[in-house]
């Protein structure tokens, strides 16, 4: 918004590259547009699709882990500190396993197939003492545990491998990596969204009070400091104090005994004084004038006054360590904290005076994204410390007990705790970190391999920290600051709507950067140190405070100068490219941020509205002589985070007039407008012509579409895999599709669609399909399901047995053994039907102990694995894989394949959130045909359009039709018309006319039934249709009589158990209202759990029927005289008995009917 006014000097520095704009050059017609699109593939080539995950993990493996180990590098025995172990260095090796004293390198695909964890040893160099003499020894490459490795990270064997090498490792080159393989399943650590740490947030709480809060986070402690104003008085709230403490008391306790200085520190504006006055008065009324008194006052309010360091006072240590913990205290000097508190007060009062200055919690600039690297580093630090403390514990225990020669530490370090700790956390998703009392669930999730898009979508997903049940709309709403950073379309429907977000195509999440040099640089650029300033000087008008990662560095008299200098340094690569420099005019602050977790995106730098990138640069890029990083290094492109974007004026296109915007004030130019969308929404053609919820629906549905999953899809062992037999790439593509590789791993087919009514089986979004199209392979899919059988070992040489199919005179004794090979396992390629055996397993009858002799045939019982399929369907054994699992048991994985053709009820969808089921399948000769003999593949009802307003789908049809007739793929990238990344409708129409079609895409059709022309022109052309995973075959269910639950004898529940269809309360109510008593009786008793009981008419209790004597008997009355027979629901009888058990006696009173 604000642009550096003193810009002359800056443009002077770049004068040698770009000529100074003159009035004439500005008035002259704008030069030809530069095709900037090539930047996108260049960017993605450098960074990949999941760069943020991999960057974050790399940062942890390369730097983070070293810092952690360094910070805790010495452990020593309690009794004798000279017995010690010191970590000299740490690094993560190559992914490998220990097999029988051998180290074998492993590949991710091997781990997927054999249910292993893809992990690498964490190796440390140690120095430790041995023996009584404390002889110092060193050991290199000592393994302290195994770390799961993110695929495609530095430590992964796939790092920087080309396609051929990846193929050798069994890996798909299009797979983005960024996930872990833990126990054979692929796990993603989702990006976690949280409020920025160490930043002052001024807001109102639920009671409407103005609060200024800071969540401090250092490597040692996390704390939350809240200052709020209640009835004109200002208080501090901290968990460690059980009552709010007047802020002036806090100031006094920190040494600010003079009220005048406090007011000076907040600022000279008389309004601040007025607002502070009640607080000062309150403090005075408590008679607190000295620091000592203030501390005393606070001591009384401490929550747990018990175990305190009495020497210096509990509240003092809280003030020093917990209160705004991220502000460092050097030599007991609390003045920085005073200044910080004063700043908080100032911000609060600003907000009271001028409500514009409230912070918005939902503003993306106030958000930080926690990535896998940070999360694992938290976990690792915890586990590492635990491991060390356990080692110390053992050492102490040992030295307490025996007085023999002390053990050495290297033997006491157990690698299991780190290995298992990491593995458990990633596989369950439960992040429990004791130090911060952090218990998070669902941090990691199974990577969905339903479609390529689904797995990509997982990698960009951002989950919120707070609970989803809240009905608040604020955090769910679309934030303007999301522009270009988070996808506006891709969010789930329902409870997580708007909370779970996805990254946009070009956004990047930063990792931490070294602070020290930056701080030093700031000081040398003229930042005045805070400690050398008097309270009065801090807020002198005209000077700006300089904040660095939430800390006050000092102030600067010429903030614009500082900002320009820093930015120029960043553009010339002196400081990191992700450092953000942001000048906040409202707060009179310069914010410099180098912390991790900020989202940022690359933009083209423009000088006075003229892009620094011109055709020569792009030429070089296209020729491959320079890449994206070179552009970054040459200062043509820079990353801006959300805050810094506020200082920029970003134009969409250089060559276009921006109505009322002064051209020379433009500072940046967007790379491509389509990059505001994410990966998943990027596959929608013409999304900017659709009603926005439709794009959101498509984002959810694109993930359920069947297609090709990866190049290695046929060699994977997923528990369920849906593939399309003849998947195609869309005729109407977008640039995003090409960038992410959806054109290589498509999930749909280009169907010729006629938009018309037909047969009435197309109402409510149903579609009518052409039988011949289905015959020819349209919508045909393969479902691969994995069935695992474990050959168990019971110890003592007793184990399961897999035997060849038993035969009698060469004939199988059971028909259901026909799929078995001679080894007792179903043979690949065999047709397997419902109830067939796929592993002929026998288990010992007695598994608890060995009998002491070799087991005989008779000691085993049959326990074959039966295939449960659909009757009448032909399924085939696709593959059989044998491997030993981590416990050295043989696990047999049978992958069973089912090829399905679409049937009535299968779900299909176009790419515009227009789902529908197949309503009927019609013979080709009944289908309408055009003058060219074209017969549509499916017919869609036009009623789908008016209310949905999916104009994009119509344009897709037109573009697809033009595409097939002229032989060129057409594009429909988001907002792509001005830049040529989307074909304009006018152009498409002229292509259609050129090829003899009507410009509007409507054809003259003949009815296939009557043979006469149809009375309307029909909108017909190809639309990319996706087959969704919901298929009738997996869902249809009916039952007559069938299995019952053991306990209640009522029919079972659910399709998988062949359950009954419940006549529920509401249905029952209907029957009652209708008066269909006999029907109720039948449904609720006869068809459910009828049971005949003997009731004693005298005592009203249930008796029993003695089958021997053929009489009924009441065990209460001890006779069988007054017995009556009646029918009850078994559940009722059960209830009576349960009541009996509780000493409640229900009695039945019978009357004759």
């Amino acid at each position, binding site marked *: 918004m604000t642009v550096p006014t003193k810009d002359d000097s800056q443009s002077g520095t770049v004068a040698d590259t770009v000529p100074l704009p003159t009035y004439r050059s500005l008035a002259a017609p704008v030069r030809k547009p530069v095709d900037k699109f090539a930047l996108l593939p260049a960017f993605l080539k450098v960074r990949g699709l999941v760069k943020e995950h991999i960057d974050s993990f790399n940062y942890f493996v390369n730097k983070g882990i070293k810092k952690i180990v360094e910070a805790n590098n010495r452990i020593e025995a309690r009794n004798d500190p000279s017995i010690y172990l010191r970590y000299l260095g740490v690094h993560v090796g190559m992914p490998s396993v220990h097999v029988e004293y051998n180290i074998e390198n492993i590949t991710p695909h091997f781990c997927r197939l054999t249910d292993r964890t893809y992990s690498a040893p964490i190796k440390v160099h140690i120095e430790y003492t041995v023996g009584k003499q404390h002889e110092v020894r060193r050991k290199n490459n000592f393994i302290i545990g195994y770390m799961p490795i993110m695929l495609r990270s530095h430590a992964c064997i796939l790092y920087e491998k080309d396609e051929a090498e990846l193929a050798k490792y069994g890996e798909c080159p299009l797979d983005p990596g960024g996930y872990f393989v833990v126990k054979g399943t692929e796990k993603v650590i989702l990006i976690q969204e949280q409020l920025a740490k160490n930043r002052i947030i001024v807001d109102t709480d639920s009671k409407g009070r103005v609060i200024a809060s800071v969540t401090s986070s250092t490597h040692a402690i996390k704390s939350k400091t809240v200052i709020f104003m209640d009835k004109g008085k200002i208080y501090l709230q901290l968990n460690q104090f059980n009552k709010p403490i007047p802020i002036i008391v806090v100031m006094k306790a920190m040494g600010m005994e003079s009220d005048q200085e406090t007011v000076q520190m907040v600022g000279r504006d008389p309004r601040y004084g007025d607002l502070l006055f009640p607080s000062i008065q309150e403090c005075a009324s408590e008679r607190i004038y000295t620091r000592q008194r203030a501390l005393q006052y606070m001591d009384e309010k401490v929550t747990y006054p018990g175990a305190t360091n009495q020497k210096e006072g509990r509240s003092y240590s809280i003030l020093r360590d917990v209160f705004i913990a991220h502000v460092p205290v050097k030599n007991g000097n609390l003045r920085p904290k005073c200044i910080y508190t004063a700043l908080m007060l100032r911000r609060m009062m600003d907000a009271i005076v001028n409500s514009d200055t409230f912070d918005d919690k939902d503003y993306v600039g106030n958000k930080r994204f926690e990535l896998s690297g940070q999360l694992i580093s938290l976990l690792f630090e915890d586990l590492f410390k635990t491991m060390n403390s356990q080692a110390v514990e053992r050492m102490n225990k040992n030295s307490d007990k025996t007085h023999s020669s002390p053990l050495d530490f290297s033997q006491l370090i157990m690698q299991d705790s780190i290995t298992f700790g990491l593995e458990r956390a990633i596989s369950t998703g439960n992040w429990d970190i004791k130090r911060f009392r952090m218990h998070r669930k669902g941090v990691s999730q199974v990577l969905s391999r339903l479609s390529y898009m689904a797995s990509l979508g997982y990698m960009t997903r951002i989950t919120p920290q707070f609970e989803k049940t809240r009905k608040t709309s604020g955090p769910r709403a679309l934030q303007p600051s999301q522009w270009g950073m988070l996808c506006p379309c891709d969010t789930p429907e329902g409870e997580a709507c708007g909370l779970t977000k996805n990254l946009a195509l070009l956004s990047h999440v930063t990792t931490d950067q070294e602070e020290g040099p930056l701080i030093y640089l700031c000081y040398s650029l003229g930042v005045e140190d805070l400690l050398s300033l008097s309270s009065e000087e801090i807020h002198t008008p005209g000077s700006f405070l300089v904040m660095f990662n939430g800390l006050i560095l000092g102030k600067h008299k010429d903030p614009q100068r500082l900002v320009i200098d820093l930015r120029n340094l960043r553009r010339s690569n002196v400081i990191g490219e992700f450092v953000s420099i942001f000048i906040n005019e409202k707060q009179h602050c310069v914010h410099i941020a180098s912390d991790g977790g900020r989202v940022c995106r690359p933009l083209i730098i423009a000088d006075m509205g003229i892009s620094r990138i011109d055709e020569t640069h792009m030429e070089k890029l296209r020729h491959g002589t320079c890449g994206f990083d070179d552009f970054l290094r040459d200062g043509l492109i820079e990353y801006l985070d959300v805050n810094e974007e506020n200082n920029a004026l970003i134009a969409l296109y250089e060559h276009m007039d921006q109505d009322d915007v002064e051209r020379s004030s433009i500072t940046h130019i967007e790379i491509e407008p389509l990059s505001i969308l994410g990966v998943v929404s990027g596959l929608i053609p013409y999304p900017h012509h659709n009603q926005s919820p439709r794009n959101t629906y498509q984002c959810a549905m694109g993930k359920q579409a069947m297609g090709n999953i990866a190049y290695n899809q046929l060699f994977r062992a997923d528990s369920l895999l849906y593939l399309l*037999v003849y998947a195609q790439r869309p005729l109407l593509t977008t640039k995003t599709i090409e960038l992410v590789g959806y054109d290589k791993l498509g999930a749909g087919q280009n169907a010729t669609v006629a938009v018309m009514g037909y047969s009435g089986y197309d109402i409510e979004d149903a579609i009518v399909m052409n039988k011949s199209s289905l*015959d*020819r392979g349209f919508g045909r899919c393969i479902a691969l399901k994995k069935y695992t059988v474990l050959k168990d070992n019971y110890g003592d040489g007793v184990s399961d047995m897999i035997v060849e199919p038993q035969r009698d005179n060469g004939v199988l004794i059971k028909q259901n053994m026909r799929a078995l090979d001679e080894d007792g396992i179903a043979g690949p*390629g065999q047709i397997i039907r419902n109830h067939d055996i796929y592993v002929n397993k026998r288990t010992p009858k007695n598994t608890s102990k060995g009998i002491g002799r070799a087991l005989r045939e008779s000691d085993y019982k049959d326990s074959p694995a039966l295939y449960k399929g659909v009757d009448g369907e032909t399924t*085939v054994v696709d593959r059989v894989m044998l491997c030993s699992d981590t416990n050295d048991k043989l696990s047999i994985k049978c992958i069973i394949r089912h090829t399905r053709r679409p049937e009535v009820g299968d779900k299909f969808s176009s790419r515009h959130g227009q789902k529908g089921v197949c309503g009927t399948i019609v013979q080709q000769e009944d289908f309408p045909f055009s003058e*060219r003999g074209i017969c549509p593949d499916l017919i869609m009802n036009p009623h789908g359009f008016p209310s949905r307003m999916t104009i994009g789908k119509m344009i897709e049809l037109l573009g697809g039709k033009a595409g097939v007739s002229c032989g060129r793929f057409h594009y429909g990238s988001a907002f792509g018309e001005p830049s040529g990344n989307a074909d304009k409708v006018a152009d498409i129409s002229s292509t259609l*006319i050129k090829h003899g079609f*009507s410009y509007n895409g409507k054809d003259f059709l003949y009815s296939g039934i009557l043979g006469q*022309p149809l*009375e309307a022109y029909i909108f017909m052309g190809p639309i990319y249709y996706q087959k969704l995973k919901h298929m009738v075959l997996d869902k249809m269910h009916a039952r007559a009589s069938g299995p019952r639950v053991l306990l209640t004898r009522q029919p079972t529940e659910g399709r998988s158990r062949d359950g009954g269809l419940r006549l529920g309360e509401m249905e029952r109510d209907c029957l009652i209202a209708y008066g269909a008593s006999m029907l109720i009786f039948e449904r609720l008793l006869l068809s459910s759990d009828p049971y005949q009981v003997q009731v004693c008419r005298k005592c009203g209790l249930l008796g029993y029927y003695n089958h021997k004597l053929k009489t009924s008997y009441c065990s209460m009355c001890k006779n069988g005289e007054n017995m009556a027979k009646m029918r009850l629901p078994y559940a009722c009888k059960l209830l009576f008995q349960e009541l009996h058990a509780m000493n409640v006696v229900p009695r039945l009173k019978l009357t004759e009917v």
Partner: protein
Amino acid sequence: MPKKGTKSKKEKVDDVPNEQENKLPDYLELQRTRVVCNADAPIHTQGFQYSGAFAAMGIDNSVSVDKFCKNFKIEINRLTEDYMEFDMIGIDASIANAFRRILISEVPTMAIEKVFMADNNSVIADEVLSHRLGLIPLDADPRLFEYISENDVPNERNTIVYKLHVSCPKNSQRITVKSSELEWLPEGSQLSMSAPAQSGDKQKTFTSFSQSQKEILEKPLGVKYKDITIARLGPGQAIELEAHAVKGTGNVHAKWSPVATAWYRMLPEVVILKEVEGPQAEELVNKCRVNVFDIEDLANGGKRAVVARPRACTLCRECVMGPNEKQVELRRVRDHFIFTIESTGSMPPEVLFTEAVKILEEKCARVISELS
């Protein structure tokens, strides 16, 4: 092309007095014989079906065999091995459509129905491979074969056996299996149903041919197109299978359809309603991308648009669109069909059509016999 009076067996019951002299008014005649394709929608698509539609005017609208025989005409425009375009003039849309429908779904052909996999370790699944094989058009005249029913034993009269045995040697390049690799087995199946009980016995196979098909057929059976990709094999992969083709019709599965497609369109008629001259004529000519119009030089040096190639009209409707007054009208002649048959190769298109006519004849005969 033999003319087929399909309703020739119908008795001549023409007791309506012949009033040919009476003519319908022009607008009704237009409605009766033409479909007018306006810019927004075609009109008069239905025509007048009812025989007495114009009885009040003394005009008979009934179908008469005489009239049909007199007016019916077939002109072949183009005929190649597997493509035929002909005009069918003077027939109702329903009959033309009946031929189209029969061609698509009721004229039988041979197609692979059963595949016996001996080996397939290629990436393509057995079912998908079989499906692909099924869709390959075979060069076998279905008239020489019989239908096979469920309980029939496959013999030389109802089954054609093909063999496919390809393998890609190790350390070689990937190969593409084309349809030409399908080998016809005139002696029947070579796969034995079970292990031979005795070495001397003739093995029981999946077919029981009593004689070689070579003796029955004049020419060897193969596939029509040699370059259809069946599968791709990587090094070390192999496919060995036997495919049994049987006779069937397109309404069961599209693989038995003898045509890629068969369709017709009504003869386009382009009428210039009022003289289009000068620049407007140029404009009109340029509007049409299929060159329906031509320019005629007038004696006075002016230019006039004329309709030169109405058949080429694809109904893009550019010439009738726009805000201007209607200059041109696009029409379709209701009883003139430009019929196109694209054969898949088992039979030439002209034979296919006669087959279709025979089937319709049969059906009519069945109806008549059922009725009487």
